[in-house]
């Protein structure tokens, strides 16, 4: 303990050099903490937007895979229909609801403004499947769907663009020059994992979009919600069976559709973000090692500079191991305080990013402690060689050193 204090004291005798030496470790720890924090933030952002799509969600898209494994026209084929969606809804025991959906782009006009946006045709079950709520007004039901009613539910952004602060519910908008009555406003949902802003769209009944705007009979996608997360795989099998039957695909033949489970996507996202985190941490570790080399360098200089002091200490009765511990504790203290300052700096930096840019930057506490401990260990290890060489000095030669 006394030797540790001794080491500290000699650090205080050279405050500038001590601070500059710790700076390397400080920056190393800071970059590890900040980069992993950002990676964590990015991960939570991606996961949150996947969560936003609705839990237990399965997405059926048209498209086939050729024998060579290449996908042909993924997502653009026209093989899925509203009847497929209905069959899934009615016949799969592990699906509690499903909705076909189709989208196109169109100009939407209010009396005051016009806005180019996405028109989504969806069935009444779309809202519960997506676990989405309305901000105001209502959604269309079976009656409007069957009757191809010209009703529209506006996304948040569209509502603001077209009506400003006014309440759009009950008013009319023009889609492709046909009037649609606004019956509701969607609650805000933000970005989809594919980067589309889900608040920038207008939802109309699927049948209305198919026959009155686009003149087609297929759907672009079928969204299905499994009864619970652990039934997702079973639901996937059921959908596959039903659709293959409905599409008359012989056993052994390739399906003309694809089923993606959101849980799979989030697994992939998790894996990717893990790789990202490890990669960033690895890059940041390089600066940590550079910091360690800085300690090695300064400690070597310090041992050389203080050769005579070491000689005096040995003459007075310091054992080689006393000298070793003194220099080792110097290196440990330098790296510990550097790492600690880097950790605190990292937390402040992440908070700053959060305040300025608004990214979620959770403090990676576990990683933080690990990094501080690791950096201290690293610095101490780099101090080992200089400390060892100091302890091996010959007392006589050290005393004579000028």
């Amino acid at each position, binding site marked *: 303990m006394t030797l540790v204090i001794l080491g500290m004291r000699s650090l205080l005798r050279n405050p500038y050099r001590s601070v500059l030496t710790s700076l390397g470790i400080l920056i190393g720890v800071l970059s590890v903490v900040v980069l992993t924090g950002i990676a964590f933030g990015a991960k939570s952002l991606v996961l949150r937007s996947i969560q936003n799509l609705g839990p237990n969600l399965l997405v059926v898209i048209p498209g086939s895979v050729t024998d060579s494994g290449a996908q042909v026209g993924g997502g653009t084929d026209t093989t899925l229909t509203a009847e497929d969606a209905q069959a899934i809804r009615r016949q799969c025991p592990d699906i509690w609801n499903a909705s076909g959906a189709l989208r196109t782009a169109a100009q939407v006009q209010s009396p005051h403004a016009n806005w180019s946006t996405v028109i989504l045709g969806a069935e009444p079950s779309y809202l519960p499947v997506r676990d989405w709520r309305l901000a105001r007004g209502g959604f269309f039901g079976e009656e409007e769907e069957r009757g191809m009613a010209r009703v529209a539910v506006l996304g948040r952004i569209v509502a603001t663009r077209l009506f400003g602060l006014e309440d759009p519910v009950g008013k009319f908008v023009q889609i492709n020059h046909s009037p649609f009555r606004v019956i509701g406003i969607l609650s805000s949902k933000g970005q989809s994992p594919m980067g589309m802003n889900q608040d920038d769209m207008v939802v109309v009944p699927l049948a209305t979009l198919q026959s009155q705007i686009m003149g087609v009979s297929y759907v672009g996608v079928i969204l299905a919600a499994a009864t619970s997360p652990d039934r997702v795989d079973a639901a996937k099998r059921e959908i596959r069976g039903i659709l293959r039957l409905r599409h008359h695909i012989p056993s052994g033949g390739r399906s003309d559709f694809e089923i993606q489970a959101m849980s799979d996507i989030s697994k992939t996202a998790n894996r990717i973000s893990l790789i990202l985190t490890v990669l960033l941490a690895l890059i940041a570790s390089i600066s940590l090692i550079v910091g360690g080399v800085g300690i090695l360098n300064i400690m070597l200089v310090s041992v050389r500079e203080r050769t005579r*002091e070491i000689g005096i200490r040995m*003459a007075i009765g310091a054992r080689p191991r006393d000298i070793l511990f003194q220099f080792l504790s110097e290196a440990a203290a330098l790296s510990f305080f550097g790492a600690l300052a880097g950790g605190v700096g990292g937390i402040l930096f992440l908070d700053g990013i959060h305040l300025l840019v608004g990214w979620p930057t959770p403090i990676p506490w576990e990683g933080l402690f690990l990094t501080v401990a690791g950096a201290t260990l690293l610095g101490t290890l780099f101090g080992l060689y200089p400390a060892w060489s100091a302890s091996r000095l010959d007392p006589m030669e050290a005393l004579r050193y000028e």
Partner: protein
Amino acid sequence: MVVRDGPGLSVRLEAVTKIYTVSGEELPALRGISLSIPAGESVAIVGSSGSGKSTLLHLMGLLDRPTSGAVFYDNRRVDTLSPSERAVLRNRSVGFVFQNFQLIPRTSAIENVELPLLYRRIPARERRERARDLLASVGMGDRERHTSSQLSGGQQQRVAIARAIAASPGLLLADEPTGNLDSRSSATILDLLLSLQSRFSTTLVLVTHDMEVARHAQTTFRVRDGLPEDPQ
């Protein structure tokens, strides 16, 4: 393993030689010296520069090991001990006073005096008290906080002496202790060393080239070219 604390350690050198090898060339510093110093005596080792007198002192103080021959403390062979054991022995039984004082730079007088006690694992409080008493006993009680750069040569040497006797060693080794001092300081330092020697009956070995200094010791041992000079 410690021989013993405090008064009087007898030192015996048996046919010691020391050969330094500098860039492949062998430079003999001591060519075979036998010397016995009884406990509690004061001995002056005299010789011109390069005679090997300092080397002799370093061998006695276990700072260095002889190329051949043996060193005994109270009839126990000590030159063959490990570096760590020699360090412990230096700490407990030997006090050094050097020509250039060898205080640790940027360190206060009291911290310098505390050092041997620190390496002896004496608790901080006791260490501080003893260091304070020691500084007072060499007339430096009012300079505890001064660092070496704030002290005159004579004052530095007094701090160094306080440090040398801090662990109450049985053997006090002084290498040209007045070599860097003016005549007035020299006299004070010499008086201090001799009074300490008689007060604690410590064995005192004084290396000097100055006969005036050597005169104060009980016996004189002359060295020339690494060999004992014939007694006059």
